[in-house]
């Protein structure tokens, strides 16, 4: 697995050293396909953290996510100092739990979102929120660039769908996902397009279901 992960992150490394063009280089006898080079920087960086414990990649993830995480925390009423306390906790959790990141199931932003929500709530309540069982067998699966890209494409479509929503709809759904609405409020909000979102990623869900069932 380490070998293949290396292939996935190699475009990142090449850019840093000003190396050859991504797309033709050979690593470990396997050619870097066009697909690999389209995988988002954040996913590649998180794989480098997971598989190589790469601190440079971690620093790049910090630069991207820390200001956004802080923005989300301050939206929900944290002071700057409190928000940074949560950011620190979330980013350390990202480093420590990176072995649980599975790029076939989650984009880097989705995985870090989930850690961010959990850590924020756990710190507020001083408890550990109940978490589903991890699917251990998932991590023995070799990274498959085609599948990772398919997920990325679905996220792109979902993002485009969210952008077509009216301002009010977008606002309410954003508040739901940033933890500002209770489940009662989510269920009674008229015009909350959870269904739209679900149907947009229906194909992705089918694929995920299929994949998860294969693990049982």
């Amino acid at each position: 697995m380490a070998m293949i992960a290396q292939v996935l992150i190699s475009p990142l490394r090449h850019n840093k050293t000003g190396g050859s063009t991504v797309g033709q280089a050979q690593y470990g006898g396997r050619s870097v396909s066009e697909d690999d080079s389209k995988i988002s920087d954040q996913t590649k960086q998180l794989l480098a953290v997971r598989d190589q414990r790469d601190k440079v990649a971690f620093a790049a993830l910090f630069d991207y996510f820390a200001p956004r995480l802080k923005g989300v925390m301050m939206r929900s009423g944290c002071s700057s100092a409190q928000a940074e306390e949560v950011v620190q906790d979330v980013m350390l959790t990202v480093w420590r739990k990176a072995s649980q990141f599975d790029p076939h199931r989650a984009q880097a932003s989705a995985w870090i979102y989930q850690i961010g929500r959990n850590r924020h709530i756990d710190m507020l309540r001083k408890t550990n929120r109940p978490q589903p069982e991890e699917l251990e067998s998932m991590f023995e699966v070799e990274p498959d660039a085609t599948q990772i890209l398919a997920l990325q494409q679905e996220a792109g479509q979902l993002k485009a769908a969210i952008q077509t929503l009216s301002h009010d709809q977008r606002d309410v759904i954003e508040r739901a996902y940033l933890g500002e609405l209770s489940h009662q409020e989510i269920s009674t909000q008229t015009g909350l397009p959870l269904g739209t979102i679900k149907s947009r990623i229906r194909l992705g869900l089918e694929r995920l279901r299929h994949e998860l069932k294969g693990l049982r």
Partner: protein
Amino acid sequence: MNMSAIKHHIPDHLLAAYSAGNLSDAFALVVATHISMCSDCRASLEAHHMTGGIFLEDAPAQDISAGLKGDILAQLDNPFRPEPVHERRGIYPGPLNAALKAQDPIWKKLGMGVHQSILSADSEGSVRLLWIPAGQKVPDHGHNGLELTLVLQGSFSDETGFYGTGDLEIGDEDLEHTPTAGPDMPCICLAATDAPLRFKDFMPRLLQPLFRI
């Protein structure tokens, strides 16, 4: 266990709230336990996380204090204690086994052969295990708030349908039901509410706070 047999799943508003961290611990335990048994809902949860991730990507960035990144990088090699991982134990999936602290439930008699084991009860709501003898009818009761009931073993049926292992029943103010455990084996459920149950004839209402039901 045949995973595809699950028919009654977590509704989207609860999954979205769980994804955002906005469910009480009692409801979150039921949701996490169901997801541990159900790949459909696990896939849906990933979709909700994906949506959350998109809003995180689009969130307004706030400047980070100068020293924070260096502080965090300096801590990467520090030893840390990994959170304990609780695996499934018998009929109890990981998150439930964690709530039980990997111990067998302590069952208390509730009457008519029904037993319960309260896992937590506070002002936000309660969560408990219920053990119902095979074929036993549980008295007609209604709900003040929301009640989630997840079947861990056996099955029950009521006015709204059949609930097998892994199925989740959502009860609200409108539901008055008389669940009956399936005939083959005792039915064990995980039930969470955000309000005390209103038993009609199970126990005098005045005693309810005493028994925390």
